[in-house]
């Protein structure tokens, strides 16, 4: 046992004057009586208690002395652990699995309760901070000795739909800032990837016990080449025995009309993936719902929200004299996947050659010449022997081998400031670049496709497709399902454009002016209203580690921790009890 404030033990010396004062205090009052002999008669019958009465003063003094000693020890702050009193960082897991019901509350509530007990035990003697972790680490308090501040910080932590990102814990554990002077304590149910390989600097404090649960851990829904919808799903169970249930596939845009009911016999663990085809199924918003016999411990993973976007080809106009090869390229994608459509009016993308004087918002320009808003100057022809790809993964060129192209007819060209050069010559002349001006965008291809016979290459339609979908902001079609924490693409995004995002609660809206928005924080359907029209995106948990709630194999690795009230607290309680007991005696002496 050690004392944090041993100087207060000197206050025990005050027991001596206390005893003196006490003895003076208990000196009884003198009362004169005219019938002393009658009092004698009354008390002669009470001799049995006289011994107790004689002892009572001593007992009362003893109680007072014990109460005083208890207070002195409480002030000296005794400690019964050999803890080095490092600063403590309480990291509470607020990932989705912590919302699982267990007993009378959720695992998150149990974690917060444990954290409160730890804070109570600190008793202001030790600095601590409170943080929560889900898809990211959030600090709710600074390092503080104030129990009130720490408890308030614990109280504000709420459940989230985010799956745990174990890399956040990894970076926390490896952060040199939390070095030898700190203890990192993770209060978690252990339902996340990499729990067994946490950094050594993180002490794991297990919350909860195994909970039977079945969840959808993978789901996808997309249009098949034959026009049907392919539904892919996978379920996982943490029940020790197989359980039965149904998986209902509903179309949310038709009032939750059930398109498919799939009977399931779910084995423990992660089950095999299944694929179903739905003929004549419309695009739109879909919900897969698990209906289990007897229910389970976690509701959020029983639903998967998915979207299948309507086919919306990018409208492309060819505004060149030699249209044939350009139109053929566009029609190739129109006939196949319907990604592009050749139009004459209201195009999204215009393909031009030369000076590119057409006033479209998005232009793909070949054979730059003359004056144009898309370059500052164009010079003499150059020979390009070894083109260099500068941005390999750019959507315009990611599907083609740009370094193998023959850039015949390429000229000296100076792109506008701020342009993104994707391919350049060995002498640094831009060959393919992306540029914007006053909200309009262009992809400039510095070659003559006819002279170079590029129009005969298989890469020609690929380049047109890449440039058109990129300029339309549609190079990536939205996925059927996103996880909370993911960032979703903004369909039709163009620099400077904004879109309104409606959250799954249906009432909250956000203005987004970026190519992506997120991280997604809620489960359900997000609505997007922007330049490319109305879109929906599904956000579902679909994470096996959050659904498999059997944490029996996970053990606490945290070192010794004081929980509950501190010894000082109990000493003060003891002192109060002793004082109450003494006051009973004192009351008896005072008023009989």
């Amino acid at each position: 046992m050690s004392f944090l404030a041993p100087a207060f033990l000197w206050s025990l010396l005050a027991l001596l004057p206390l005893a003196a004062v006490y003895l003076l205090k208990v000196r009884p009052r003198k009362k004169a009586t005219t019938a002393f002999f009658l009092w004698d008669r009354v008390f002669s019958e009470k001799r049995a208690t006289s011994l107790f009465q004689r002892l009572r003063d001593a007992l009362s003094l003893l109680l007072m002395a014990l109460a005083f000693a208890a207070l002195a020890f409480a002030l000296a702050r005794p400690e019964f652990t050999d803890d080095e009193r490092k600063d403590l960082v309480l990291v509470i897991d607020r990932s989705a699995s912590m919302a699982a019901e267990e007993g009378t509350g959720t695992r998150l509530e149990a974690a917060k309760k444990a954290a409160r007990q730890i804070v109570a035990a600190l008793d202001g003697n030790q600095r601590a901070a409170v943080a929560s972790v889900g898809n990211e680490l959030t600090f709710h308090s600074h390092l503080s000795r104030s129990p009130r501040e720490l408890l308030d910080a614990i109280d504000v932590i709420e459940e989230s739909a985010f799956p745990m990102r174990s890399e956040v814990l990894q970076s926390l554990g490896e952060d040199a800032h939390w070095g030898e002077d700190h203890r990192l304590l993770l209060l978690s149910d252990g339902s996340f990837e990499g729990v067994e390989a946490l950094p050594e600097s993180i002490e794991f404090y297990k919350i909860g016990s195994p909970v039977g649960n079945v969840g959808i851990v993978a789901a996808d829904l997309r249009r098949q080449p034959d026009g049907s919808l392919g539904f892919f799903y996978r379920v996982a169970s943490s029940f020790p025995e197989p359980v039965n249930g149904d998986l209902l596939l509903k179309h949310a845009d038709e009032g939750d009309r059930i398109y498919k009911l799939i009977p399931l016999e779910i084995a423990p663990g992660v089950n095999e993936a299944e694929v179903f085809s739905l003929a004549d199924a419309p695009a739109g918003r879909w919900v897969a719902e698990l209906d289990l016999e007897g229910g389970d411990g976690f509701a959020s993973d029983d639903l998967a929200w998915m979207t299948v976007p309507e086919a919306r080809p990018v409208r492309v106009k060819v505004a060149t004299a030699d249209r044939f090869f350009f139109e053929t390229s566009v029609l190739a994608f129109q006939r196949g996947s319907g990604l592009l459509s050749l139009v004459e009016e209201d195009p999204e993308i215009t393909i031009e050659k030369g000076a590119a004087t057409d006033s479209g918002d998005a232009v793909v320009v070949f054979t730059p010449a003359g004056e144009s808003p898309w370059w500052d100057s164009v010079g003499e022809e150059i020979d390009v022997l070894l083109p260099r790809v500068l941005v390999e993964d750019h959507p315009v060129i990611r599907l083609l081998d740009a370094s193998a192209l023959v850039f015949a007819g390429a000229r000296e060209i100076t792109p506008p400031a701020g342009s993104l050069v994707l391919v350049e010559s060995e002498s640094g002349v831009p060959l393919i670049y992306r540029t914007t001006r006053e909200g309009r965008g262009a992809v400039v291809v510095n070659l003559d496709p006819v002279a170079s016979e590029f129009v005969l290459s298989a890469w020609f339609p690929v380049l047109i497709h890449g440039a058109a979908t990129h300029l339309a902001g549609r190079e990536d079609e939205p996925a059927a399902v996103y996880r909370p924490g993911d960032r979703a693409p903004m369909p039709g995004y163009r620099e400077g454009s904004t879109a309104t995002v409606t959250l799954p609660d249906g009432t909250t809206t956000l203005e987004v002016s970026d190519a992506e928005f997120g991280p997604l924080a809620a489960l359900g359907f997000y609505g997007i209203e922007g330049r490319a029209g109305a879109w929906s995106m599904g956000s579902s948990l679909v994470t096996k580690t959050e659904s498999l709630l059997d944490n029996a194999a996970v053990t606490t690795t945290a070192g010794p921790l004081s929980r509950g009230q501190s010894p000082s607290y109990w000493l003060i309680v003891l002192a109060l009890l002793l004082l109450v007991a003494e006051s009973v005696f004192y009351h008896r002496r005072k008023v009989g």
Partner: protein
Amino acid sequence: MLFTDPVFIRRLESLYLLARKVLGGSLQADRKTTRKGAGITFADYAEYRLGDDFRSIDWRIYAKFESLIIKLFELEEDATIYLLVDASRSMKSKFRYARELAAALGYIALNSLDRLCVYGMADTLRPVLDPCRGRGKAMGFLQSLEEMETFGGDTDFTTCTREFQARRKRKGLVIVISDFLFPEGFDAGLKYLQWHRHDLFCLQVQDDTDRKCDWKGDVTLECVETGQTRRLTVSPAEARAYEAAVVAWNDELKQCCARRSIGLASTGPEIPFDAVIQEILRRGGLVA
């Protein structure tokens, strides 16, 4: 207020006038007595015995029945009133009141031409007023009471009565004014006086400090008479036991007086002394 104060004396005079009216006497000794003797008020008949006064034989009865029957009359005598006033320290809180009562009774006695003798009583007997008689002694009597003080240690009533009897052989009416809280008891003293053919009347004076215990807790109890102390813890139960003990003690006094045909009046300072005397007179005087 002094006992010789005119206002106080007027209150005593009023009591005397009431006594005259109630008791009806007008000559040398107005106080009624149970003893029979040569008065003028017929009391009873009795058979003639040797030594009886011939003048009291009822000759008419003798003429009819040829037996000697004498008439008895109420005795109107020159009675002696002894006031034994408890002057122990236990009377301190009610000593003025006890002296007021004594003043009233003594004043009536002197004005009724009875002989009056006053003693202070504690662990021993202390004379306050030597036997005297007549209205002219009233002021001296009141002066003596005025100067009277408490004295002595523990009240020893039995000793006092023996001392009294040793000093005063003449029978009379002994009025004991006291709280009767005698550690050695009162029975022996009363019995002794009665055995010596004194008429007795007890006037018990107690106040709330005698009857009740309104303090509780740890106390050092001190006897006001002896200075003896005792450390006690007085709980409500003990306080109630004490009050019950006082009641029992007073009941014992009542039973003792009733058994011995001794007049008894209990009072306290909360009742004006003249109201007490009036009540005693209305009940027929100091006769049991």
